[in-house]
């Protein structure tokens, strides 16, 4: 049967993708941001996931204002990088485990998490930047080293789903994965954040202290953390910091007790605090080194 072995939390700042695509990662501005992912790239080579279940948000690319699903599961065979206004990122097409995705869709809906099912979908920087950070520079003629099941969460129009709902969706995803017959290793990514505000007169808000307690409590108090009210994200982590609800989906899909394998935090990437964490289930010591 399929198993979730570990979780990855990761910001998905578009400027990170631009820096990689333009070969700027060694510049003084960017080098400290990327240095924190060197260990992660080694780790994921050893963890060797067959499938990455990638929780992210679309930034009005596929879902413009006409259509705003709270949860949308990617069930297409593949997902092309989208043109977000400056041409598609020069990264590989993302390939799905389509049989597993349809199994997950059916399992989640019967488990009372009503997914929108996407049989055609492009993917924006919210999905491709975390893949690039974890797997390194890959071009359009390369292949990502694993299959990817995308889950889009609305965090653009308030309200995003609650942290509690997201945490429990993570548990339902785990049940869906574990009821899939194929012997597969799955790593779940929760992306977005950390503190940032892109808009209006308070733009530029960064709250390192709050971000740090968020990462600490993913291990020490995940259930309590999932009860954080939306207004706390908005006030403490900025209007776009509410993206962090997506990390609760990742956390909910893991064991109650996990080991923190790696953490990285850097300010700034453009307007944003970059946060990254790797959490491993203890029954996979090979993953948790």
């Amino acid at each position, binding site marked *: 049967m399929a198993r979730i072995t570990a979780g990855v939390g990761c910001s998905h700042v578009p400027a990170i993708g631009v820096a990689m695509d333009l070969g700027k990662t060694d510049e003084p501005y960017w080098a400290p941001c990327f240095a924190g992912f060197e260990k992660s790239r080694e780790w994921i080579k050893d963890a060797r996931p067959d499938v990455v279940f990638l929780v992210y948000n679309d930034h009005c690319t596929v879902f413009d*204002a006409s259509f705003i699903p709270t949860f949308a599961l990617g069930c297409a065979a593949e997902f092309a990088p989208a*043109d977000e206004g*400056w041409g598609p990122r020069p990264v590989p097409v993302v390939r799905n485990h389509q049989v597993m995705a349809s199994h997950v869709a059916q399992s989640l809906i019967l488990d009372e998490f009503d997914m929108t099912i996407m049989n055609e979908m492009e993917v924006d920087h919210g999905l491709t930047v975390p893949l690039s950070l974890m797997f390194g520079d890959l071009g359009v003629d390369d292949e990502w080293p694993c299959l990817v099941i995308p889950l889009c969460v609305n965090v653009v129009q308030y309200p995003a789903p609650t942290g509690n709902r997201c945490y429990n969706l993570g548990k339902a995803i785990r049940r869906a994965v574990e009821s899939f017959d194929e012997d597969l290793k799955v790593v779940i990514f929760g992306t977005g954040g950390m503190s940032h505000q*892109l808009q209006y007169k308070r733009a530029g808000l960064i709250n*390192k202290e709050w971000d740090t307690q968020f990462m600490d409590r993913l291990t020490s108090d995940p259930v309590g953390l999932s009860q954080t009210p939306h207004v706390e994200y908005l006030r403490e982590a900025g*209007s776009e910091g509410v993206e962090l609800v997506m990390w609760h989906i990742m956390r909910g899909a893991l064991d109650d007790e996990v080991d923190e394998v790696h953490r990285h935090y850097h300010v700034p990437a453009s307007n944003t605090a970059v946060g990254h964490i790797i959490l491993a289930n203890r029954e996979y010591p090979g993953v948790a080194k």
Partner: protein
Amino acid sequence: MALKKDYEDIPGTLVFDADRGREGYHLNQFCISLRLQGNRDAFNADEGAYLDRYPMTAEQRQAVVDRDWNRLLELGGNIYYTSKLGANDGITFQQLAGLMTGMGNEAYRKMMVDGGRPPDGNRYQHEWDDKGEN
């Protein structure tokens, strides 16, 4: 009974909720159309004719013409949408933030490199009122 909007006392922040989504719908749909090169070409060739396609309010239309980035948000725009208008004009997210905060690009960029805008003094509207900011 009205929903309680407990986020309205955060200074310098417009939460893009369902009411703003309703008010800004046509404005945002205009902005997102600029994701595609063909639409950017048509808009840049004749802004007025292109804007006629979107039944936004006169105020919204004027804010587009004026590139009044804060006004666009006050009238229901969302930053992920208005940033497409910025991108059309060659303005990045960070440059937009320099404009929206009134700091200018260099001062804003330096603030971010120095660790960003601190939360202290920036959590509640009354903290800004006390400082004479709005």
